[in-house]
């Protein structure tokens, strides 16, 4: 057992810490700061800050330097994730690109794709969206109907995608498109990289129950994309998608823990302010959810160990998703318990609860997107436990 990082990794940590402490204004760490900005302003601020961070060498931690990465270790990536949360760094504006697209490009992209995609993504010159879900294809991704028809060197794309993060700010979108006429289910799909700045693409915000619009809808109406802008083979998009989704490995679990633990502490603070922190039943409830958060931290250390050892995590990603999403949702249910009769108020005793309510509402979505809890349990039961389909 060795829960320490290497000397080089710790050195990286202190470099990063210095940069972060010099480059994050105090007011950004104030609860509710980001919620107080309008959507566009928040996006612009984060986009620019993240570009500066990349230019300072703190981006693409694990990717080769030749493509603009830092050439670091998995441990450095974990440290990076943890420290940015700890320092209240703003959330990335390129989450789908960084988490999913980049490692997939590194694994199966052409040399040209690696060069064209990674660097600009790190510098936020290109914001990437993901186009997977459709109104009729949610948990059942393979039911997608967005069509691409070959026209010379291009595909002409028609259809609709939903649940697209950052849709209205996106520059390009990696999209699952049915490019083989008459195909069904997993066959005949291609992963096309479509420029969103063209007349055939229309992105609209999708308002959520919280009132915010993290997600959007993207409509393709004779949108064009060169056939070479396909990730993986044409027609082999299902395989590309499965590889892509496999990068949701919880390697950032330590950062997640750091964030959720801070939220737990915030909830405890509210309980204290309301005088409910001494109620034994409430304490038991808080402790139950803290137990799950601690388990999440340990699970993240396990995952990081497996990655460092070069072991295949197989379908363990489903467990990771279940643990963090269900624990996170529980955490915010407990917040409502803490508020009791004031559960829906915007503020109590001068405490502005709206940023916390926003988290609580957001927590309802995490067991749905990225493979619902029901889908993750199916995968765990069938692929990990070997129960029959």
């Amino acid at each position, binding site marked *: 057992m060795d829960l320490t990082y290497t000397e080089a990794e710790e050195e990286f940590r202190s470099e990063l810490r210095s940069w972060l402490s010099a480059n994050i204004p105090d007011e950004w760490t104030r609860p509710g700061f980001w919620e107080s900005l309008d959507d566009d302003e928040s996006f612009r601020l984060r986009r620019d800050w993240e570009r500066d961070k990349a230019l300072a060498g703190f981006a693409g931690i694990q990717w080769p330097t030749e493509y603009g990465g830092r050439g670091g270790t998995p441990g450095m990536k974990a440290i990076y994730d943890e420290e940015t949360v700890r320092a209240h760094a703003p959330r990335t504006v390129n989450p789908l690109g960084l988490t999913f697209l980049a490692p997939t490009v590194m694994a199966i992209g052409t040399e040209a794709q690696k060069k064209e995609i990674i660097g600009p993504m790190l510098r936020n010159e290109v914001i990437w969206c993901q186009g997977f879900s459709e109104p*009729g294809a949610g948990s059942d991704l393979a039911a997608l109907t967005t069509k691409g028809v070959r026209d010379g060197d291009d595909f002409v794309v028609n259809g609709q995608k939903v649940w697209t993060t950052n849709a209205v700010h996106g520059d390009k979108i990696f999209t699952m498109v049915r490019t083989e006429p008459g195909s069904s289910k997993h066959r005949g799909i291609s992963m096309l990289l479509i420029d969103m700045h063209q007349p055939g693409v229309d992105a609209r915000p999708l308002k959520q*129950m919280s009132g915010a619009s993290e997600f959007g809808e993207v409509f393709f109406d004779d949108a064009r994309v060169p056939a070479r802008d396909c990730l993986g083979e044409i027609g082999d998009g299902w395989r590309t998608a499965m590889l892509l989704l496999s990068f949701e490995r919880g390697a950032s679990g330590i950062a997640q823990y750091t964030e959720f633990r801070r939220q737990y502490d915030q909830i405890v603070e509210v309980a204290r302010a309301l005088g409910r922190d001494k109620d034994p039943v409430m304490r038991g409830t808080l402790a139950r959810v803290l137990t799950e958060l601690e388990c999440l931290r340990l699970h993240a250390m396990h995952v990081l160990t497996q990655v460092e050892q070069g072991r295949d995590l197989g379908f363990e990603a489903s467990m990771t998703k279940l643990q963090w999403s269900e624990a996170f949702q529980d955490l915010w*249910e407990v917040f409502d318990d803490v508020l009791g*009769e004031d559960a829906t*108020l*915007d503020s109590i005793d001068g405490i502005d609860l709206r940023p916390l309510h926003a988290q609580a509402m957001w927590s309802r979505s995490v067991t749905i997107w990225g493979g619902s809890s029901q889908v993750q349990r199916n995968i765990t039961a069938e692929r990990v436990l070997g129960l029959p389909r």
Partner: protein
Amino acid sequence: MFFALTDDQREFDAAVRGYLAERFDLEAVRGVVEDPAGDGHPASLWKAAAEQGWPAVLVPEEHEGLGLGLVEAQVIARALGAGVAPGPWRGTVLAAEAIRLAGSPEQQAAWLPRLASGEAVGALAPRGSAPGTLPAVEYGAVADVVVVRSGEGLALVEASAFSATPQGSYDGTARLASLAVDGTGEALPGATAEIVAELTARATVLVAADLVGIAREALSRTVAYDRDRQQFGVPVGSFQAIKHALADLHVGVTMAEHAALYAAHAVDAGLPDAALAVAVAKAKAGDVALDATAAMIQYHGGIGYTWEHEAHFFYKRAKRLAGQFGDSDAQRARIAELTIDTVPA
């Protein structure tokens, strides 16, 4: 043994639901939700409510009310919950109840007919006491008269005697206000500790019934959606894990329906286990409403998480009401007092 609604009670239920379905459906609710600066008190709905006797339900006939019981009142509350309907019905009924139970003949004569007819809007301040600031009063800003704690008893405070400050709340199906009251109000002379407890019990039953209505409607809508929505070539509702979750909810909601009905009767009839029945009803109703509305979001998939879908009306209303007059933990603490600290005969 007759533990069920009578035909008359069923007709009352059908009338309320019928009106909401035809004249104040979820699109109308959306109008209220999307106008947070508005008073949340649609005139057409209140007029219809008054015409149909909803605020008059518990007012004695001698004061121009319907003279019915808490069983009928919970029928209305449940239907309003199912319709996530806005408006000051509950506060008006409870203000009238306070006056009926503890008011002087003069107070009764002055207020009960007006509250019964909907001419006056009433409210009940759940916390604080006069003089002082009373937080989170449902529809306090539109109330003509508010029943408040004052000393050990209860008092009436008229609109001229308080100033209301709206309090933001994410449940857009109701409006809350904080009331600043200078004086002690006009005492309700009969307000003993027992009467205060009885009023609280009645308020709790009506909140429980609203929650039960929410829960049943959330479940029914989810079942209907999952019967049709196709994924993997089959209806989502054919997946056993979803079936079982919905079946468990059906059992839970049915139990909560029983519990709200019984509590209403037990309070009206003064049954010896009335206090226990009220706590059981509120605990169960709060829990199933939270569960059913969370399930409504989850089992609609992404669409249930959107603003355009109605799931959040139910979810948010359940969140607010589950805490009123003691959340489930508080009710369980009460149940423990009633069944652990008392050695059974």
